[in-house]
């Protein structure tokens, strides 16, 4: 955990959960696992306040707890689950792309609440859909189907259930059922409960949306009480990872090759263990069937595509076996390494220039080289090459190995071999990404703070205008209200909007780099 990472976490916590959560979070990050009383005491917070903060963080899967062997409970902040907050927009977008608007809202609400019961989630989403949809009512049946589909494709998982302990003695922490395999199924009891409630509702008559909320506030009425659901971050990460691989193939070969790869990934995505470096083998016929018909790929073309993919110098796709018309696997680790390399290369190319990039790539291809050899291979004049090499060395993109010919390590009798350590560079860049992300968010906050008065005013004016419209006032009155914002103010508002948009867009792009680097480092750790 670096300062940059902690800074970023603290900012995320502050932005989404307020200053107290930030205080607690940073304290936990800096001190590791801590019991409740220590947190409250060291931060001079009220015990109840601390408790509430921890509840919130736990609700959002950020805080974990465990029993210390001395018998007290310690709380721990999971930094990955804090940083994953930056990826939420991407999760929501993925859900929308995969399953449409309903799924988008489901994921959005679920992310918003952290953990929630199925019935409550379905109600909220149905309500929101009906609010936005002009005309046709969206049936809650449809929403329920979408939810079940998301659970089946493992994008949503059930939170581990609390098992009631038989001994009767009060325990320090609740124990959870450890049956991992059924987290991706909707229990029939829950389904029935939700359905029966629906029926009951419809019997009750068309209750209004406003009233519905009131009934929800009383927890006892929920039929599926105690069964909570949450987003499976891991699954979304895998989905995003697969997208990166597919895009890379798309750029490298063409769209249809990318579809082939997508088919292979899809076929093995649900039965995959995260810790293996390759996907499960998929047979030729399965791929053929999984390919969308409108692509017009016949068996001959598919054969050629698979051959191209297997022969490709990136070596993403391997032929595992000849049985079943050929079994194909995707080497995820290699794929991630290649993609990560491409990102590192991109950084070098953009930051230093193409000549530097040539040296960097040369070192990646040839592993260990002496300075002289670098100049010669890259065909760059010695003086320039030296300059470039040392600058990259200074910025830690290139590392050096000393191979002494004599035991005294005298420079004149030592070989200095330059090389690129990819995981080292990736780690360094990840740090830089965190810092850059922090900078961007800070700047965004700064811009909003600078123009707070103006933004507030705009909000007020819009609210008044909206209420006037609702009450049926004539347009002239509305125009009058809207003219309270002067043209110069309007220009300024447009500027602020432009700036925040730009910053937010950059944050999303930056997050992509962070994602690639993080995933690469995960796979790098595996072996």
């Amino acid at each position, binding site marked *: 955990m670096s300062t940059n990472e902690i*800074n970023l976490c603290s900012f995320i916590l502050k932005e989404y959960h307020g200053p107290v959560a930030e205080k607690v979070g940073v304290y936990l990050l800096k001190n590791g696992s801590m019991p409740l009383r220590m947190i409250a005491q060291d931060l001079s917070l009220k015990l109840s306040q601390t408790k509430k903060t921890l509840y919130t963080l736990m609700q959002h899967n950020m805080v974990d707890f465990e029993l210390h062997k001395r018998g007290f409970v310690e709380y721990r902040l999971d930094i990955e689950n804090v940083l994953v907050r930056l990826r939420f927009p991407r999760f929501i977008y993925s859900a929308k792309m995969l399953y449409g608007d309903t799924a988008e809202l489901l994921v959005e609400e679920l992310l918003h609440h952290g953990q929630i019961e199925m019935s409550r989630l379905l109600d909220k989403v149905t309500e929101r859909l009906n609010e936005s949809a002009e005309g046709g009512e969206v049936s809650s049946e449809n929403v329920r189907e979408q939810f079940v589909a998301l659970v089946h494709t493992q994008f949503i998982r059930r939170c581990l259930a609390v098992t009631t302990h038989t001994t009767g003695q009060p325990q320090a922490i609740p124990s959870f059922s450890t049956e991992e395999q059924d987290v991706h199924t909707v229990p029939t009891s829950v389904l029935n409960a939700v359905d029966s409630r629906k029926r009951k509702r419809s019997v009750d008559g068309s209750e209004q949306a406003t009233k519905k909320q009131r009934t929800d506030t009383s927890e006892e009425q929920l039929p599926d009480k105690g069964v909570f659901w949450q987003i499976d971050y891991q699954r979304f990460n895998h989905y995003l990872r697969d997208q990166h691989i597919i895009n890379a193939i798309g750029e490298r070969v063409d769209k249809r090759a990318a579809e082939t790869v997508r088919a292979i990934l899809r076929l093995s995505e649900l039965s995959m263990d995260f810790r293996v470096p390759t996907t499960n083998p998929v047979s030729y016929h399965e791929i053929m069937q999984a390919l969308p018909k409108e692509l017009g790929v016949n068996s001959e073309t598919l054969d050629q595509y698979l*051959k191209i993919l297997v022969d490709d110098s990136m070596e993403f796709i391997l032929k595992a076996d000849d049985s079943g018309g050929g079994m194909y696997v995707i080497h995820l680790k290699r794929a991630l390494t290649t993609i990560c390399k491409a990102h590192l*290369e991109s950084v070098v190319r953009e930051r230093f220039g193409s000549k530097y990039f040539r040296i960097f790539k040369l070192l990646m*291809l040839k592993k260990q080289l002496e300075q002289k050899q670098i100049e010669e291979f890259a065909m760059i004049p010695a003086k320039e090459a030296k300059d470039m090499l040392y600058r990259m060395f200074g910025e830690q993109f290139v590392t050096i190995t000393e191979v002494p010919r004599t*035991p*005294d390590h005298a420079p004149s009798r030592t070989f200095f071999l330059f090389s690129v350590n990819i995981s080292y560079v990736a780690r360094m860049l990840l740090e830089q990404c965190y810092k850059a992300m922090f*900078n961007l968010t800070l700047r965004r906050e700064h811009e909003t703070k600078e123009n707070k008065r103006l933004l507030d005013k705009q909000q007020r004016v819009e609210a008044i205008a909206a209420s006037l419209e609702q009450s049926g006032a004539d347009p002239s009155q509305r125009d009058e209200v809207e003219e309270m914002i002067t043209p110069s103010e309007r220009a300024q508002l447009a500027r602020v909007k432009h700036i925040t948009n730009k910053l937010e867009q950059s944050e999303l792009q*930056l997050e992509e780099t962070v994602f690639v680097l993080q995933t690469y480092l995960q796979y790098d750790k595996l072996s």
Partner: protein
Amino acid sequence: MTIDRGGGEAQALWVDLGAGLKLALGIIQLCQDIPKGITDQVIQNDMPQFDAQQRVMAINRLLSTGRIDLLKSGNQLIYRLKNAEAASKVKGAGSHEKLVYQIIEEAGNKGIWIRDIRYKCNLLLTEVNKILKNLESKKLIKAVKSVSLRSWMMDRNANAAENVLVDLDQELEHIRGFICGCRCFDDGTCCQQFMDWEIVDTPNECKGDNSQTEGLRLKNPLSCSPGSSHPMTNSGSICSTGEESTHLLLYLQNHHPQASTSTNSVCLTRSMNSADINCPEQSRHIRSRTSPLLQQSAHHVKWLLPLAHQKMTKEAASKKKVYMLFNVEPDRSVTGGAWYSDQDFESEFVEVLNQQCFKFLEQKATTAREAKTNPMAQKNAAYASSSDICKYISELGISKVNLSVEDIEMILDTLIYDGKVERSIVAGGGGDAGGQMKLYRATPHITPPTGLMRTPCGVCPVFHECHAGGIISPTNCVYMKEWLEY
């Protein structure tokens, strides 16, 4: 030495001179008849009227005037006529100048380094410098700056290793020559000479390692490079000439039979090899006396020879001035080939070729993509062989120099390092001698510019000094301001 032929002294001298002249002319005639060279036996057979003394005198005179060469074949001495042309060119020059000229001539179009000249002729540096300047002003020789590319060009050639070995062999030759020439070899005098040597123990400067390295050093501080305490340098320089290495060998054998440290083994190896190859009486003598030592250091040879090679390559790699005859066109390895003009690397030329090659490949890839054939055919159509590219480049006429396929392959290699092109090798596909065809294909980048580089922070020069609330901070960042206004 007096030759008594009876009669008056003056007359005797005259007769002697006349006879000597006659003999000398006879020898030259013989040499001209047999260009391969003649032995003493041939002279004796041809002109039996002269005795050994007279032959020695005549040959000595011819040698001193530079008319004939004394060579050695097996264990026989051979006399051969010296190149008349060379002799005429350096007419009027001193014998030293002739010697240097010959050495340079031998080096051919590869040229020879001043240190090697000195090393071969055993003259003082100042003298060699003077002679070289003299010869240069007479336009007999020229100095050529060798380029740094040299060692690499060697590597690329199939006989790269051979070249290095030739260099090494030349040195061995030298040592060998010395041992042959070492006419009077007497243990007594040797030991006398070796009294100047001492064995020194040099503590290792390496931390945590208290072992000591045995080294050799001259007692005389003048011939020992001051300041450097490491045995490698000292013994290295000391043993650089054949004479000393032989002495050293003997000395080691006499005084320090266990000495087998890495520091002196290089020269041991050399002298051992020379003794091994040549086996004249003296070296055989050395060998018989030193055989235990040789065996002992035999296992060092294995890893020391590569080291010696490396040293050679390094020397070849550094930019240095070499001398060659004035009318000789320098070798490609000296000038660096097509990428050098006046010993300067033409980076612009390389850049232009790099771009043109890429343009060619990219065009090929685009036409292949637009052909809308099946994917396999598309991929194959994007490939171009190195000879095709070479033809294209020469047809473009951007290069004044004739570029070979290897030159183009070097350019294409840089494109591979640029990440724009990939290579695949097809065995037996082309008309190349190696039965290998190198195919190249333009490939696109697999990712767009990464997110980090699309923010100002990615290229910020003061990124590491930037902190929230600092003098440089994201809230007052000028780069970010400009970027946001854009």
